[in-house]
Protein backbone atom coordinates (compact mmCIF):
# COMPACT_ATOMS: atom_id res chain seq x y z
CA UNK A 1 0.00 0.00 0.00
CA UNK A 2 2.84 2.37 0.96
CA UNK A 3 4.47 1.59 -2.37
CA UNK A 4 1.37 2.77 -4.26
CA UNK A 5 1.29 5.95 -2.18
CA UNK A 6 4.95 6.59 -3.06
CA UNK A 7 4.29 5.99 -6.75
CA UNK A 8 1.22 8.20 -6.95
CA UNK A 9 2.84 11.09 -5.04
CA UNK A 10 6.09 10.86 -7.01
CA UNK A 11 4.20 10.56 -10.30
CA UNK A 12 1.99 13.51 -9.48
CA UNK A 13 4.93 15.71 -8.47
CA UNK A 14 6.85 14.72 -11.60
CA UNK A 15 3.84 15.51 -13.79
CA UNK A 16 3.29 18.88 -12.10
CA UNK A 17 6.99 19.71 -12.55
CA UNK A 18 6.70 18.94 -16.26
CA UNK A 19 3.47 20.90 -16.55
CA UNK A 20 4.64 23.87 -14.45
CA UNK A 21 5.88 26.38 -16.99
CA UNK A 22 3.70 25.13 -19.82
CA UNK A 23 0.82 26.47 -17.73
CA UNK A 24 2.53 29.29 -15.87
CA UNK A 25 4.62 30.96 -18.56
CA UNK A 26 3.60 34.55 -19.29
CA UNK A 27 3.10 34.90 -15.53
CA UNK A 28 6.48 33.85 -14.12
CA UNK A 29 9.97 33.88 -15.54
CA UNK A 30 12.49 31.53 -13.96
CA UNK A 31 15.20 33.60 -12.19
CA UNK A 32 18.72 32.87 -13.48
CA UNK A 33 20.21 31.53 -10.18
CA UNK A 34 17.30 29.08 -9.90
CA UNK A 35 17.90 27.93 -13.48
CA UNK A 36 21.53 27.20 -12.66
CA UNK A 37 20.56 25.36 -9.47
CA UNK A 38 18.08 23.27 -11.48
CA UNK A 39 20.79 22.35 -13.93
CA UNK A 40 23.06 21.14 -11.12
CA UNK A 41 20.34 19.25 -9.21
CA UNK A 42 20.45 15.98 -11.17
CA UNK A 43 24.28 15.93 -11.10
CA UNK A 44 24.25 16.43 -7.34
CA UNK A 45 21.62 13.85 -6.46
CA UNK A 46 22.90 11.16 -8.84
CA UNK A 47 26.50 11.58 -7.62
CA UNK A 48 25.31 11.34 -4.02
CA UNK A 49 23.63 8.02 -4.86
CA UNK A 50 26.59 6.65 -6.82
CA UNK A 51 29.44 7.33 -4.36
CA UNK A 52 28.29 5.05 -1.48
CA UNK A 53 27.34 2.32 -3.97
CA UNK A 54 30.92 2.25 -5.24
CA UNK A 55 32.81 2.87 -1.99
CA UNK A 56 31.04 0.10 -0.06
CA UNK A 57 31.55 -3.57 -0.78
CA UNK A 58 29.38 -6.09 1.08
CA UNK A 59 28.28 -3.23 3.38
CA UNK A 60 31.88 -2.40 4.37
CA UNK A 61 33.60 0.86 3.43
CA UNK A 62 36.47 -0.19 1.17
CA UNK A 63 38.29 2.58 -0.68
CA UNK A 64 41.00 0.47 -2.29
CA UNK A 65 41.79 -1.35 -5.56
CA UNK A 66 40.57 -4.58 -3.97
CA UNK A 67 36.99 -3.26 -4.11
CA UNK A 68 35.53 -4.54 -7.41
CA UNK A 69 32.64 -2.08 -7.30
CA UNK A 70 35.04 0.87 -7.03
CA UNK A 71 37.29 -0.37 -9.82
CA UNK A 72 34.37 -1.22 -12.11
CA UNK A 73 32.83 2.18 -11.36
CA UNK A 74 36.03 4.00 -12.30
CA UNK A 75 36.24 1.99 -15.52
CA UNK A 76 32.58 2.75 -16.31
CA UNK A 77 33.26 6.45 -15.71
CA UNK A 78 35.88 6.27 -18.44
CA UNK A 79 33.49 4.44 -20.78
CA UNK A 80 30.75 7.00 -20.10
CA UNK A 81 33.17 9.84 -20.77
CA UNK A 82 34.31 8.40 -24.09
CA UNK A 83 31.08 6.91 -25.48
CA UNK A 84 28.39 9.04 -23.74
CA UNK A 85 26.25 5.93 -24.12
CA UNK A 86 24.19 4.35 -21.32
CA UNK A 87 24.27 0.82 -22.67
CA UNK A 88 28.05 0.69 -23.27
CA UNK A 89 28.67 2.13 -19.82
CA UNK A 90 26.55 -0.56 -18.16
CA UNK A 91 28.03 -3.39 -20.25
CA UNK A 92 31.62 -2.22 -19.65
CA UNK A 93 31.12 -1.70 -15.93
CA UNK A 94 29.36 -5.04 -15.43
CA UNK A 95 32.07 -6.95 -17.33
CA UNK A 96 34.83 -5.49 -15.14
CA UNK A 97 32.71 -6.06 -12.03
CA UNK A 98 32.10 -9.73 -12.87
CA UNK A 99 35.74 -10.27 -13.76
CA UNK A 100 37.08 -8.76 -10.51
CA UNK A 101 34.45 -10.55 -8.41
CA UNK A 102 35.71 -13.85 -9.73
CA UNK A 103 39.48 -13.41 -9.29
Amino acid at each position, binding site marked *: MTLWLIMVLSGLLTFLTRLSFIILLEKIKLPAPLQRALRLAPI*AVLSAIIAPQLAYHNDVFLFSPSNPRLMAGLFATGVAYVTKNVVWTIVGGMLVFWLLERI
Partner: protein
Amino acid sequence: MNESAGSQFWGGVRDELPILLGVIPFGMIYGILALSAGLPALEAQAMSAIVFAGASQFMLVELVKAGTPVFVIVLTTFVINLRHALYSATVAPYLQTLPLCWKGALAYLLTDEAFAVGVLNYQRRGVTAYAHWYFFGAGLALWSAWQISTAAGIFLGAQIPAVWGLDFTLPLTFLALVVPALKDRAGVATALIASLAALALIGLPFKLGLISATLIAIGAGLLAEKKATT
Protein backbone atom coordinates in the same frame (compact mmCIF):
# COMPACT_ATOMS: atom_id res chain seq x y z
CA MET B 1 4.26 22.38 -47.44
CA ASN B 2 1.73 19.58 -47.26
CA GLU B 3 1.26 19.05 -43.55
CA SER B 4 -1.30 16.88 -41.75
CA ALA B 5 -1.77 15.58 -38.22
CA GLY B 6 -0.89 12.07 -39.41
CA SER B 7 2.28 13.02 -41.28
CA GLN B 8 3.48 15.06 -38.31
CA PHE B 9 2.70 12.27 -35.84
CA TRP B 10 4.61 9.65 -37.83
CA GLY B 11 7.43 12.13 -38.43
CA GLY B 12 7.82 12.41 -34.65
CA VAL B 13 7.72 8.64 -34.21
CA ARG B 14 10.35 8.18 -36.93
CA ASP B 15 12.76 10.74 -35.47
CA GLU B 16 12.41 9.19 -32.01
CA LEU B 17 13.36 5.69 -33.23
CA PRO B 18 17.18 6.02 -33.03
CA ILE B 19 16.87 7.16 -29.40
CA LEU B 20 14.76 4.11 -28.57
CA LEU B 21 17.78 1.90 -29.24
CA GLY B 22 19.29 3.30 -26.06
CA VAL B 23 16.04 3.45 -24.12
CA ILE B 24 14.89 -0.15 -24.61
CA PRO B 25 17.82 -1.85 -22.81
CA PHE B 26 17.51 0.83 -20.11
CA GLY B 27 13.83 -0.04 -19.59
CA MET B 28 14.63 -3.73 -19.47
CA ILE B 29 17.32 -3.18 -16.87
CA TYR B 30 14.82 -1.18 -14.82
CA GLY B 31 12.33 -4.07 -14.97
CA ILE B 32 14.97 -6.60 -13.95
CA LEU B 33 16.25 -4.38 -11.14
CA ALA B 34 12.78 -3.61 -9.76
CA LEU B 35 12.03 -7.30 -9.47
CA SER B 36 15.40 -8.12 -7.90
CA ALA B 37 14.77 -5.35 -5.34
CA GLY B 38 11.60 -7.18 -4.31
CA LEU B 39 8.91 -5.12 -6.07
CA PRO B 40 5.92 -7.17 -7.27
CA ALA B 41 5.59 -7.31 -11.07
CA LEU B 42 2.39 -5.21 -11.13
CA GLU B 43 3.93 -2.40 -9.06
CA ALA B 44 7.13 -2.47 -11.11
CA GLN B 45 5.11 -2.01 -14.31
CA ALA B 46 2.74 0.56 -12.80
CA MET B 47 5.70 2.68 -11.77
CA SER B 48 6.78 2.97 -15.41
CA ALA B 49 3.32 4.29 -16.28
CA ILE B 50 2.73 6.50 -13.22
CA VAL B 51 6.17 8.00 -12.57
CA PHE B 52 7.48 7.55 -16.14
CA ALA B 53 10.97 8.93 -15.50
CA GLY B 54 13.94 6.60 -15.96
CA ALA B 55 16.56 7.81 -13.51
CA SER B 56 14.14 8.48 -10.68
CA GLN B 57 12.49 5.06 -11.09
CA PHE B 58 15.88 3.41 -10.54
CA MET B 59 16.40 5.55 -7.47
CA LEU B 60 12.88 4.88 -6.16
CA VAL B 61 13.49 1.14 -6.35
CA GLU B 62 16.74 1.55 -4.44
CA LEU B 63 15.21 3.69 -1.69
CA VAL B 64 12.16 1.43 -1.35
CA LYS B 65 14.48 -1.55 -0.94
CA ALA B 66 16.34 0.31 1.83
CA GLY B 67 13.08 0.96 3.68
CA THR B 68 13.30 4.74 3.35
CA PRO B 69 10.31 6.75 4.71
CA VAL B 70 7.72 7.86 2.15
CA PHE B 71 8.39 11.56 2.62
CA VAL B 72 12.13 11.25 1.95
CA ILE B 73 11.55 9.09 -1.15
CA VAL B 74 9.03 11.51 -2.64
CA LEU B 75 11.25 14.50 -1.87
CA THR B 76 14.29 12.85 -3.46
CA THR B 77 12.31 11.95 -6.60
CA PHE B 78 11.10 15.52 -6.79
CA VAL B 79 14.67 16.85 -6.70
CA ILE B 80 15.88 14.39 -9.37
CA ASN B 81 13.02 15.42 -11.63
CA LEU B 82 13.40 19.16 -11.06
CA ARG B 83 15.27 19.38 -14.35
CA HIS B 84 11.95 18.81 -16.05
CA ALA B 85 10.92 22.29 -14.93
CA LEU B 86 13.65 23.56 -17.28
CA TYR B 87 12.24 21.49 -20.14
CA SER B 88 8.80 22.78 -19.30
CA ALA B 89 10.02 26.38 -19.48
CA THR B 90 11.77 25.67 -22.78
CA VAL B 91 8.80 24.14 -24.61
CA ALA B 92 6.19 26.41 -23.02
CA PRO B 93 6.39 29.19 -25.65
CA TYR B 94 5.61 26.68 -28.43
CA LEU B 95 2.55 25.25 -26.68
CA GLN B 96 0.79 28.43 -25.59
CA THR B 97 -2.05 28.25 -28.14
CA LEU B 98 -2.95 24.61 -27.41
CA PRO B 99 -5.99 23.64 -25.32
CA LEU B 100 -5.39 22.45 -21.76
CA CYS B 101 -5.82 18.74 -22.54
CA TRP B 102 -3.01 18.95 -25.11
CA LYS B 103 -0.79 20.79 -22.63
CA GLY B 104 -1.50 18.08 -20.06
CA ALA B 105 -0.80 15.20 -22.46
CA LEU B 106 2.45 16.71 -23.72
CA ALA B 107 3.57 17.52 -20.17
CA TYR B 108 3.00 13.88 -19.18
CA LEU B 109 5.15 12.78 -22.13
CA LEU B 110 7.88 15.39 -21.45
CA THR B 111 10.89 13.14 -20.76
CA ASP B 112 14.55 13.86 -21.51
CA GLU B 113 14.34 11.95 -24.79
CA ALA B 114 11.03 13.36 -26.06
CA PHE B 115 12.15 16.85 -25.10
CA ALA B 116 15.36 16.51 -27.10
CA VAL B 117 13.56 15.47 -30.28
CA GLY B 118 10.48 17.68 -29.85
CA VAL B 119 12.32 20.91 -29.11
CA LEU B 120 14.72 20.39 -32.00
CA ASN B 121 11.74 20.18 -34.35
CA TYR B 122 10.20 23.38 -32.99
CA GLN B 123 13.53 25.20 -33.24
CA ARG B 124 14.00 24.02 -36.81
CA ARG B 125 10.48 24.56 -38.15
CA GLY B 126 8.72 26.87 -35.72
CA VAL B 127 5.12 26.48 -34.56
CA THR B 128 3.01 25.08 -37.39
CA ALA B 129 -0.65 24.00 -37.34
CA TYR B 130 0.17 20.37 -36.56
CA ALA B 131 3.62 20.64 -34.94
CA HIS B 132 2.18 19.40 -31.63
CA TRP B 133 1.31 16.11 -33.35
CA TYR B 134 5.02 15.67 -34.09
CA PHE B 135 5.85 16.19 -30.40
CA PHE B 136 3.03 13.81 -29.46
CA GLY B 137 4.35 11.14 -31.86
CA ALA B 138 7.87 11.38 -30.45
CA GLY B 139 6.58 11.27 -26.86
CA LEU B 140 4.20 8.39 -27.45
CA ALA B 141 6.88 6.35 -29.25
CA LEU B 142 9.12 6.74 -26.24
CA TRP B 143 6.29 5.98 -23.82
CA SER B 144 5.38 2.76 -25.63
CA ALA B 145 9.01 1.63 -25.79
CA TRP B 146 9.42 2.31 -22.07
CA GLN B 147 6.31 0.31 -21.08
CA ILE B 148 7.12 -2.64 -23.34
CA SER B 149 10.79 -2.80 -22.34
CA THR B 150 9.80 -2.62 -18.66
CA ALA B 151 7.47 -5.59 -19.21
CA ALA B 152 10.25 -7.48 -21.01
CA GLY B 153 12.63 -6.76 -18.13
CA ILE B 154 10.09 -7.93 -15.55
CA PHE B 155 9.60 -11.13 -17.54
CA LEU B 156 13.37 -11.70 -17.81
CA GLY B 157 14.06 -10.60 -14.26
CA ALA B 158 12.04 -13.48 -12.89
CA GLN B 159 14.57 -15.86 -14.42
CA ILE B 160 17.86 -14.12 -13.56
CA PRO B 161 19.61 -15.33 -10.39
CA ALA B 162 20.66 -12.77 -7.75
CA VAL B 163 24.32 -13.84 -7.90
CA TRP B 164 24.69 -11.97 -11.18
CA GLY B 165 24.83 -8.82 -9.07
CA LEU B 166 22.53 -6.93 -11.40
CA ASP B 167 21.84 -4.35 -8.68
CA PHE B 168 25.24 -2.94 -9.65
CA THR B 169 23.67 -1.72 -12.91
CA LEU B 170 22.09 1.06 -10.84
CA PRO B 171 25.23 3.10 -10.06
CA LEU B 172 26.49 2.31 -13.58
CA THR B 173 23.32 3.70 -15.13
CA PHE B 174 23.62 6.84 -13.06
CA LEU B 175 27.29 7.22 -14.01
CA ALA B 176 26.26 7.06 -17.65
CA LEU B 177 23.83 9.91 -17.05
CA VAL B 178 26.09 12.09 -14.89
CA VAL B 179 29.45 11.88 -16.65
CA PRO B 180 28.37 13.38 -20.01
CA ALA B 181 26.60 16.18 -18.07
CA LEU B 182 29.89 17.33 -16.48
CA LYS B 183 30.68 20.03 -18.98
CA ASP B 184 32.19 22.72 -16.77
CA ARG B 185 33.81 23.52 -13.43
CA ALA B 186 30.50 23.94 -11.64
CA GLY B 187 29.29 20.52 -12.77
CA VAL B 188 32.50 18.77 -11.73
CA ALA B 189 32.57 20.56 -8.36
CA THR B 190 28.94 19.57 -7.76
CA ALA B 191 29.63 15.91 -8.53
CA LEU B 192 32.75 15.74 -6.32
CA ILE B 193 31.20 17.51 -3.33
CA ALA B 194 28.04 15.42 -3.65
CA SER B 195 30.09 12.21 -3.57
CA LEU B 196 32.16 13.27 -0.56
CA ALA B 197 29.18 14.67 1.35
CA ALA B 198 27.14 11.54 0.67
CA LEU B 199 29.92 9.37 2.14
CA ALA B 200 30.37 11.69 5.12
CA LEU B 201 26.65 11.92 5.88
CA ILE B 202 25.76 8.29 5.24
CA GLY B 203 24.99 7.79 8.92
CA LEU B 204 22.14 10.33 9.05
CA PRO B 205 18.77 8.79 9.91
CA PHE B 206 15.99 8.18 7.33
CA LYS B 207 18.47 8.31 4.45
CA LEU B 208 18.45 12.10 4.89
CA GLY B 209 22.16 12.06 4.02
CA LEU B 210 21.24 11.81 0.35
CA ILE B 211 19.09 14.91 0.21
CA SER B 212 21.49 16.86 2.49
CA ALA B 213 24.47 15.97 0.32
CA THR B 214 22.48 17.04 -2.75
CA LEU B 215 21.70 20.47 -1.35
CA ILE B 216 25.27 21.03 -0.11
CA ALA B 217 26.63 20.05 -3.53
CA ILE B 218 24.26 22.36 -5.43
CA GLY B 219 25.45 25.19 -3.18
CA ALA B 220 29.09 24.29 -3.82
CA GLY B 221 28.45 24.11 -7.56
CA LEU B 222 26.86 27.55 -7.61
CA LEU B 223 29.86 28.94 -5.69
CA ALA B 224 32.30 27.33 -8.14
CA GLU B 225 30.35 28.86 -11.02
CA LYS B 226 30.46 32.29 -9.41
CA LYS B 227 34.22 32.03 -8.84
CA ALA B 228 34.78 30.94 -12.43
CA THR B 229 32.95 33.95 -13.82
CA THR B 230 34.47 36.66 -11.57
